[in-house]
């Protein structure tokens, strides 16, 4: 068993209303010095075998077709 992480974030040029709402709220809560917040998704994919190149390739395909919407999102895949 191995854990592969897929991080999915909105592309930088795409509006992130959630991140903006959080960033706007921070000063009110007494947090200063934050320039920007972006919110994305994190997937923990537990695979049955080892996280070898073949498995990673599979997860990459999964990210490309299912986990991320590549019209508006970028993703990255890594082993934890």
């Amino acid at each position, binding site marked *: 068993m191995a854990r592969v992480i897929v991080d999915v974030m909105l592309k930088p040029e795409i509006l992130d*209303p*959630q991140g903006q*709402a*959080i960033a706007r*709220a921070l000063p*009110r*809560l007494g947090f200063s010095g934050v320039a920007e917040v972006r*919110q994305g998704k994190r997937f923990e994919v537990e695979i049955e075998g080892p996280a070898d190149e073949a498995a990673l390739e599979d997860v990459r395909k999964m990210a490309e077709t299912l986990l991320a919407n590549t019209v508006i999102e970028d993703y990255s895949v890594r082993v934890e």
Partner: protein
Amino acid sequence: MGAARVGVVTFPGTLDDQDAARAIRHAGGEAVSLWHADRDLRGVDAVFLPGGFSYGDYLRCGAISRFAPLMEELVPAANAGLPVLGTCNGFQILCEAHLLPGALTRNVGLHYVCRDQRVRVENATTAWTGDYAPGQELLLPVKHGEGRYVADQATIESLEASGRVVVRYLDVNPNGSTNFIAGVSNEAGNVVGLMPHPEHAVEELTGAPSVDGRGFFTSILKRFVNL
């Protein structure tokens, strides 16, 4: 003596505030609007936190509203016994503010669901349910995407054991809530949160095909008349 004054809080993105105010008026009370950015409860006798999408439900439902200036007044007042009812987003805010235990999470079906739902009043002794008979069955609309009530096992057990599960879904569990829980109260019974919307079941003509929601409003008003 004048009618009881029930505050209705508006956060940015609150939707059901006017409906709540109308339901309070219909029940004979005075609705007092409270603005999230004011540190002022305007001397109300009770507070209603209505549903909606405060702050767009961004981050988590209720997560940002919880920090509103008004909440700094409301939390200590509620802890001191001020009756507070939160429905839907209001319930979510009460959980985020730790006035109620547990949390409301994504519906198990992953979709927003708007339906007329049968529920049962499990506790008719709280500030907001005194006008119902124990075990009374009601038809109330639910409409939410994140209404699945969860809490750790010990909390659930103690809620059940102490009668703090105030309302429970019947027939279908619309969101996958633990034990079909639709609403809970704090220990003192003055703070109640529920996912269904009583304010949309108070008139024959509009809303859900029932007027079963009236009891929540008459409960609180009678309480003040009887004081």
